[in-house]
């Protein structure tokens, strides 16, 4: 398969401008900035079927079209490089290996909404990646690719790289905007959506790194070409990170629609469950999506529709594989710890719910649970869902509900303090 995003990953020096340009770098951006209208760009991307790769999967062209380009206010593009979903490690490779691809994608995003100042918001832990990105940006600026009259197109565009401080919630688009404005990263209530009231109260688009990185290829090809990779409704390719109990953990670019079991087992991707063990479960799209049993994995393809049909989500593409020895209570406890630690603290159900659930998980896991704890967990999860400003509460509630539904007996056993067989 031809690679859309990861094509240059194995090319030495692809993080330098020289090598990147040698492989056709910045040709797409040059063409878009100098001769494409935003309308043409939006239509092209709409036709390609590209959907936001951050997790929600919202069609990118449509997102751009919500921006009122006639507004007298400045329009902003924020590239979301706050990749923090457990199990997901795709954007970091783009930043590390092909930072110019992201810069080029950013230029294209900017043109789509008539933006002249774009921000790349990186998670604070991306210390090395930020340095690489900043170096690449400096190269691009020196070469006249970013700045006034970018690429000789007559279009002025400034790009600022901004570092977060290590909060998961700043990956939520309005949390990101708050943080970028210098405030505590707490999601805003929507509506109004960022397209109307975003960064500094101006129309704003927040695009994921992977989304932006896919754009140069899409521009250089007919929209149908990108669509050909995937299924009818989920077009294109997707970076998937696979981690956990597999032989070949890593990040791979796959055509959407690939069977999940193939992704786990193929020697081209995950290489199968390690140590010759059997698959017990798999979280396909990052820690916040519902877990799949081994039987469900067999039925699921990696695309938005198939995931939804099997009660889970493609999310950000963080595939976590668990073998037959995995302790589900302990696994959920780890997730509980993450989400209770990362809850911003704004909304009551999330602030208290994530923490309370984590405490109960801890005591069950530590053998100090009570039989009624399992139902209590389920109740907490149900009381959290859909009652908060952002989906962080749901991000723990969904795993709790799916773990408890699919692996209930393990929880009951531990809660009743029965010795493991």
């Amino acid at each position, binding site marked *: 398969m031809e690679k859309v995003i990861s094509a240059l990953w194995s090319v030495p020096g692809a993080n330098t401008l020289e090598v990147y340009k040698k492989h056709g770098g910045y040709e797409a951006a040059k063409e878009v900035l100098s001769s494409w209208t935003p309308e043409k760009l939006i239509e092209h991307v709409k036709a390609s079927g590209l959907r936001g790769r951050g997790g929600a999967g919202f069609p990118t062209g449509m997102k751009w079209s919500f921006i009122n380009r006639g507004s007298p206010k400045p329009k902003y593009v924020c590239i979301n490089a706050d990749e923090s979903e457990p199990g997901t490690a795709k954007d970091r490779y783009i930043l590390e290996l092909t930072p110019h691809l992201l810069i080029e994608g950013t230029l294209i995003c900017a043109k789509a909404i008539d933006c002249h100042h774009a921000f790349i918001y990186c998670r604070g832990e991306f210390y090395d990646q930020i340095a690489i990105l900043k170096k690449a940006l400096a190269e691009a600026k020196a070469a006249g690719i970013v700045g006034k009259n970018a690429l000789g197109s007559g279009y002025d565009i400034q790009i600022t790289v901004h570092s977060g401080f290590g909060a998961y919630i700043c990956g939520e688009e309005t949390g990101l905007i708050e943080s970028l404005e210098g405030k505590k990263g707490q999601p805003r209530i929507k509506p109004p959506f960022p397209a109307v009231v975003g960064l500094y109260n101006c129309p704003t688009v927040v695009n994921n790194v992977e989304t932006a990185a896919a754009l140069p290829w899409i521009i250089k090809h007919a929209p149908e070409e990108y669509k050909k990779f995937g299924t009818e409704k989920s077009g294109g390719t997707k970076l998937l990170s696979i981690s956990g109990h597999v032989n070949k953990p890593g990040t791979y670019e796959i055509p959407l629609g690939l069977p999940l079991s193939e992704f786990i087992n193929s020697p081209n991707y995950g290489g199968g469950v390690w140590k010759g063990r059997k698959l017990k479960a798999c979280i396909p799209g990052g820690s916040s999506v519902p877990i799949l049993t081994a039987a469900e994995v067999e039925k699921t393809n990696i695309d938005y529709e198939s995931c939804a049909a099997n009660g889970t989500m493609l999310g950000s593409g963080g595939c976590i594989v668990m073998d037959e020895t995995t302790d589900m209570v302990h696994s959920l406890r780890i997730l509980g710890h993450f989400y209770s*630690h990362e809850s911003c603290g704004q909304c*009551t*159900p999330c602030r*208290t719910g994530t923490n309370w659930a984590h405490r109960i998980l801890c005591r069950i896991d530590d053998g100090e649970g009570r039989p009624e704890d399992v139902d209590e967990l389920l109740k907490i999860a149900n*009381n959290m869902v*859909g*009652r908060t400003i952002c989906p962080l509460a749901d991000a723990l509630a969904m795993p709790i509900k799916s773990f408890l539904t699919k692996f209930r007996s393990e929880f009951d056993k531990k809660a009743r303090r029965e010795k493991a067989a």
Partner: protein
Amino acid sequence: MPKITIDGKEIEAREGQSVIEVAHQNGISIGHYCWHPGLSPEGNCRMCLVEVEKAPKLMPSCMTQVAEGMVVRTEHASQKVRDAQKDVMEFLLVDHPIDCPICDQAGECKLQDYYMKYDKQPSHVPLETKIKKEKRVHFSDQVVYDTERCILCTRCVRFCREVGGQEELGMFNRGAISFIGLQSGELQSPYQGNIVDICPVGALTNSDFRFRKRVWFMSSSKSVCAGCSRGCNILTDYDKEEVFRYRPRENPDVNKWWMCDEGRMSYKHIHAEGRALVPLLRQGGEAAEKTGWDKAFSRTMEIFQLLHKRHGAEAIAAVGSPFASLEENFLLKKLFNSYFPGSPVAFPPEKLYHQGQGDKFLITADKSPNALAGSLLGLSALDAVFDGIESEKIKALYVLGDDFLIDRPGAPKVAERAEKLFPKLSWLVCQTPYLHKTARIAHAVFAGAVHAETTGTFVNVDRRAQRFFQAIRPPAQAREGIKILRDFGTLMGAELPDAENPAALFDAMAAQEKSLSGLSWNALGDRGMPLPSQGAQK
């Protein structure tokens, strides 16, 4: 004007209003913590959730703007909403320390109220598993924060930002260990007491009020702050004969929901040392001695009559006070006008009680609550009295309330002249709640009451007449000013309005004073009324 339906009731709302605002204006209550009508909505407590037709999820009514044709079901009409509210209550109480027995908020706590209303289920969270957080964090001398009780509604943070004008507080850390903290140093705002009022739970308490009184023992009387000429509407909270605190009372035209800290603490004057508790009379000696009311009245009357006979009515003058009610000043004027016609009834100059600049919000430079009384009742300038004493025309003086013998930067000449001239008087009567310098040189002291001990009217800096009601009785033998003036007047045989109660007295006054024409006690209501404009009178 969007028309919306709440619980089946069709309501015409204003563009831009939130659902909770409209509901409350129409008598439909919606439980809430973080929403406050005086602050921007935040939508974080999730208590005010309502069902909105066509919306996939429950919506926070504080953040949901009305739209034409919107159909809303609140807790009164939706089991789904009630369930959600019960869940929120459960979440809020998971880590709450349940220390109501030692919490000052008990009795006026939204957690308690809403627990009874929405939750009412036994706790299944063992106390020892609750998160421990810092107790007793001093935000300032006045405000104490209890992290464990805090529900992080951020009303206090928003108050500082939006009303206090300084980003003094913030929410720190994340998740369940979040807490409210100072951005730096300690709270500076002169309005910081308000954050204790708006804290819906016991997280913020006022160190002045802490541990002094259980709120359910106290009664409240509607009053007006006497700390400056703004006339912030307040509640005087008292039990038996002691006032424990002032709290702001909502009045959109004056103070909204707020008051300043200086005003809040001004209740302390009520029980301060140096109150005049009994009438005093100088009988031969240098100092005035304790006496009975009859004796103080009759001796003063004798002297007034003697001086009247010897030097004419002009020999006896009086001075009103901006600390006394409109009614007291009015009675003083009536008494002297009817008995000693031609003698001046004066009023201190406007600038006398000015201190500092005031601010752009509530605090004014004038530290007296009723400075306009003099001009409204047509009283003379204080200099007329001073000149009269200087020229030895005035031999006796009846002073209402004030101390003229301390230096006040607003009008330094007053103390200077008073010091020189008062000793020349044959008889100085001081009707006052305090034994201040003027009272100490007076021949007779009529022990009076402060405004919490009486009922009457003040006119504030914006010419708004506002009623205040008695909370407690004057201490010991002290009497309400109105009663003193009426009793003394009756003894003198003056023609005073025949008014049994404050309402009748005000109405009689309004009937006689042009500046108050058209007003009545009942019409003033709880929020007061602007006086007829000066232009209209002329």
